């Protein structure tokens, strides 16, 4: 919402400082988004008195003026027909830069030196020229800054208005908050030239008439109140300068006096109005009703609309002439020929307007306000002020007005318990203060049985309950005026999410291994038939939720390659989505994914040549360790060139292996893994007593037949070696024709908890292991 500081100032009858007003409004709940001093580019223009006007010796249309600029009298050539001796005009001295960037120099015009320029409104960026240069009606002495002499020096303040405060969408509502803050009265100044005898509109139930024009509400649900005034004999034309200046100050474009007057009231009182050309209303009548099947209307923006039966329309005796609360129709638009006007001032039901403007995909200043709820009670006052303004700027006379109000409602009363104020705010606010605060912004307060009966004014539709009033008290007292004081509290009964513990453990593991945590964007192209599709995506490339983390990780990998980062180590913990099994909500699974590529360690000068590169064995170990921390209890098994993680029931819940990526020639292979994070029982660590006996080591080099796997061998070792075998670990692999294929060496560590093992004892176990391996897997010892 754009505000003019002058406009606000005129209602408070005092000068205002833009910065201070901004602070006050922020404290009232409407923070300032922008603040701009207007027309600062006119700072060098001054008021000058033309003392004498002569004809230019060499040109009929030009005048030669003696101009008093306060310090001296200079000669200025002027081309405007209206220049008159004894009058004052805006004057730009030599050296002044005008809006648009024109810098004035003294130059010869038809042989006569002209020192500066007498300016027109257009040259000053103040609108269109009427008669030439801008004649100033001012007492200011020559030499006075033009901005100081004219009411143009204004500030535009843009505030953010929350959806609950429609009253702040008008200058009056904002001024009301300022009046409360400054402790000054709020008064709307009368318009120059306005009639003083405009009467309040005549009340009517469901239908009435204004100067012979029938006004009837058939859809009272969509339109609880409709006021109309008939003004005859207007002259449509440009608005006076002050009105144009006001509108320009808030960024609105002046159109003609009738439209400008309605806009002015909209921005002043937050009451949208609409002016119909009375001559074009059939009947003449106004009927407020739902749209009928087959009806169409061409709105002011030139679009043909086909309203549905849920929309409230303003119609004449036969056809729609406006979409209620949204936009008028071309068929009843005011034109330069218009002489008689029907001025609409109505209240439309907020949800109805919201629905209509959404269905028509057209939001207007009017619909924006109606859907937030305007002031139902103050409509008659708004109509009267609108009529005053209209007659002041466009002439004519009011010949009748009507206020059709089928079911009048009173201002609601909300009760406030003063002890509840203290209970919720934590500070006892004296009753007198509560009353004073509420009254300052227009509530009427009366004590009633230990409570306050608070009457809510029409412009505050947001206040419906006690807590709304408590907020008002807090707001008007000032949030900063409550203490900051840590008081005793009871601890939470809610347990921590156990998943956080698992995530922490995974993060410690993988950052410890040198991987950086990343977060990839969870929307993308369809990742699998199981992917959840967005109904209203922003683009086709981001129309699905991810089903896996690896596409995002591969994208990140490729991004790094694209910026010439060769060594990439990333992991991600994130949610993936699949279509719902049953019910409505998609299935969400917490996933862990990782990718590594490039050097396994940073290079070091003691190791010449190229550092070792990550390979599948790195990723297998990471996968196993991560699975042990975060996976379902299960096992890692071979799967093609890679591995998969199976849970106890055999369901696959993770994989590891080489990744396919768009790899530049200089980049290393990439490996990765991904697994479902399973939040299981917390692992309890129980201390194992340190061994008091020495270990005995034996190395076994075995020649394995094709197809025999190391884990099979180890399973035999553990089974047969128990209980003396403590660990067994493969430490070498050798492939050669000479050994007849593949030979793998294991280091076995034996230990007895209660005694030192003798060699013979160990040899016997080893022999038994070797025998069983031969028997079950046809594995034999490598001869030496």
């Amino acid at each position, binding site marked *: 919402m754009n505000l003019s500081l002058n406009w606000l100032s005129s209602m408070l009858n005092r000068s205002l400082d833009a910065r201070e007003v901004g602070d006050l409004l922020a404290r009232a709940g409407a923070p300032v988004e922008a603040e701009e001093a207007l027309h600062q580019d006119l700072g060098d223009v001054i008021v000058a008195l033309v003392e004498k006007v002569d004809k230019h010796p060499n040109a009929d249309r030009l005048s030669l003026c003696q101009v008093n600029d306060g310090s001296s009298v200079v000669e200025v050539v002027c081309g405007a027909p209206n220049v008159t001796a004894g009058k004052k005009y805006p004057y730009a001295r030599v050296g002044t830069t005008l809006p648009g960037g024109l810098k004035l120099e003294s130059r010869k015009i038809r042989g006569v030196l002209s020192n500066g320029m007498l300016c027109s409104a257009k040259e000053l960026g103040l609108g269109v020229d009427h008669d030439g240069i801008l004649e100033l009606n001012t007492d200011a002495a020559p030499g006075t800054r033009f901005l100081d002499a004219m009411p143009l020096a204004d500030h535009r303040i843009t505030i953010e208005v929350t959806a609950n405060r429609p009253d702040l969408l008008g200058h009056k509502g904002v001024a009301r908050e300022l009046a409360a803050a400054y402790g000054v009265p709020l008064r709307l100044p009368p318009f120059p030239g306005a009639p003083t005898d405009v009467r309040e509109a005549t009340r009517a139930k469901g239908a009435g008439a204004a100067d012979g024009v029938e006004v009837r509400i058939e859809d009272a649900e969509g339109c609880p109140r409709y006021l109309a005034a008939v003004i005859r004999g207007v002259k449509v034309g440009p608005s006076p300068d002050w009105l144009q200046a006001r509108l320009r100050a808030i960024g609105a474009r002046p159109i003609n006096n009738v439209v400008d007057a309605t806009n002015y009231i909209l921005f002043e009182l937050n009451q949208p109005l609409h002016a119909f050309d009375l001559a074009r209303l059939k009947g003449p009548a106004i009927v407020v009703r739902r749209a009928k099947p087959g009806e169409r209307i061409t709105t002011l923006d030139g679009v043909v609309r086909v309203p549905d039966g849920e929309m409230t329309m303003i119609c004449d005796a036969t056809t729609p002439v406006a979409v209620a609360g949204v936009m008028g129709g071309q068929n009843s638009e005011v034109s330069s020929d218009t002489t008689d006007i029907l001025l609409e001032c109505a209240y439309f039901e907020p949800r109805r307007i919201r629905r209509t403007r959404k269905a028509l995909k057209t939001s207007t200043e009017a619909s924006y306000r109606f859907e937030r709820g305007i002031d139902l009670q103050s409509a008659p006052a708004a109509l009267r002020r609108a009529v005053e303004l209209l007659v002041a700027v466009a002439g004519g006379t009011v010949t009748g007005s009507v206020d059709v109000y089928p079911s009048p409602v009173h201002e609601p009363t909300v009760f406030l318990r003063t002890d509840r104020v203290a209970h919720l705010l934590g500070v006892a606010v004296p009753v007198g203060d509560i009353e004073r605060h509420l009254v300052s912004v227009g509530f009427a307060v009366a004590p009633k049985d230990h409570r306050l009966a608070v009457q809510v004014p029409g412009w505050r539709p947001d206040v419906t309950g006690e807590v709304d009033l408590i907020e008002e008290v807090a707001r008007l007292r000032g949030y900063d005026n409550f203490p900051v004081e840590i008081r005793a509290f009871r*601890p939470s009964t809610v347990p921590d999410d156990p998943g956080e513990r698992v995530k922490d453990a995974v993060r410690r593991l993988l950052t410890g291994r040198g991987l950086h945590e990343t977060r990839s964007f969870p929307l993308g192209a369809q990742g699998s038939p199981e992917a959840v599709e967005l109904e209203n995506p922003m683009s086709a490339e981001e129309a699905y939720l991810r089903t896996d983390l690896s596409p995002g990780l591969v994208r990140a990998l490729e991004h790094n390659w694209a910026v010439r980062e060769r060594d990439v180590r990333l992991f991600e913990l994130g949610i993936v989505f699949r279509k719902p099994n049953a019910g409505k909500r998609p299935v969400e699974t917490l996933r862990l994914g990782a990718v590594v590529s490039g050097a396994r360690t940073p290079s070091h000068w003691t190791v010449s040549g190229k550092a070792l590169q990550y390979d599948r064995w790195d990723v297998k170990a990471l996968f196993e360790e991560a699975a042990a921390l975060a996976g379902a209890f299960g096992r890692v098994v071979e799967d093609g060139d890679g591995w998969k993680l199976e849970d106890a029931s055999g369901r696959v819940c993770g994989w590891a292996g080489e990744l396919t990526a768009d790899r530049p020639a200089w980049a290393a292979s990439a490996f990765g893994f991904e697994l479902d994070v399973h939040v299981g029982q917390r692992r309890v660590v129980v201390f194992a007593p340190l061994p008091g006996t020495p270990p005995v080591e034996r190395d076994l080099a075995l020649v394995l037949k094709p197809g025999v796997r190391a884990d099979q061998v180890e399973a035999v070792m553990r089974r047969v070696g128990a209980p003396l075998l403590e660990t067994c670990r493969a430490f070498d692999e050798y492939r050669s024709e000479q050994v007849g294929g593949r030979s793998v060496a294991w280091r076995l560590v034996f230990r007895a908890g209660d005694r030192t093992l003798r060699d013979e004892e160990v040899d016997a176990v080893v022999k038994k292991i070797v025998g069983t391996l031969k028997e079950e897997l046809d594995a034999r010892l490598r001869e030496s």
Partner: protein
Amino acid sequence: MRDKLNDLASAAAEIATADASRLAELKVSLLGRKAGKLTELLRELPTLSHEERRTLGAQANELKKKIEADIDERERTLATPSGAGADVDGSMPGRQAWRGALHPVTLVVDEICEIFRELGFSRVTGPEAETEEYNFTKLNISLDHPAADAQDTFYVGQGTLLRTHTSPMQARVMETNKPPIRVVVPGQVYRRDAFDPSHSPVFEQLEGLAVDEGLSFVDFKAAIDYFVKRFFTRDTVVRFEPSFFPFVEPGAQVQVQCVMCRGSGCSTCKQSGFLEIMGAGMVHPEVFTRCGLDAERYTGYAFGMGPQRIAMLRYRIPDIRLFFEGDMRFLGQFT
């Protein structure tokens, strides 16, 4: 042949103690291409019987590997100066390992949660796909009201949506726990906003909720003030201004003194000297009622903030998109 192998093995034992010149001799005498003893021995292999060739061949090859490795290691040791008077260049770099870093959003979220833990808040998470009921209705947000326009929503079918804020967890926590409730809820949220340097359709939010008998606006202000001063600096000025969110009343917007200019005004704070960091307020009684708690008996406060935005302020990150790229040069800065 077997003897020769044994001889070679004992000769090889000398490698470990040989000085540089002796090592060079050994290298030639054992592995020399022409007259190296081991080389010669390997040349003899084809003349042996098949059986011998298999067993001795394997041993000879293994011995060759070992000798090569031993010589290599000894050479390295000799090449590295040590001991008194040796010319060690200690300015050469030490041997490093890769160091991984947590994502800046994780760092910020963890720190916020830890600070609120000092105030007795536990940490929970909730679903990202939500129902209209939890995302809006239970939070007193009517889709009929313009207040809902602030949350342009992605729908995924059957009235299900991607949560537009972490606030649905307020309802879920209140429905499944008895007060006193004190929780913080970090998590990802979704809005139909175009990407720009400060907006993303997906971003992190962190919700807080405290519910008990007798919690007041003073408790609320104190908790937020405590957090801000712990997270930023003790002398950071905190400002509370009225604002509107349908699920809190009184509603507030919390601003902190600009971290860039310390309040004097700069481009980050649009010359205001303050930065908005969270929306907050006292839980609206209607929310209690809709979540099955007695609104007369219980009061509480709630707040929501954007860890990405806070991370951007803390680490002076200029563009939100950096959070999603997985750029090693970016992520590596947070070790």
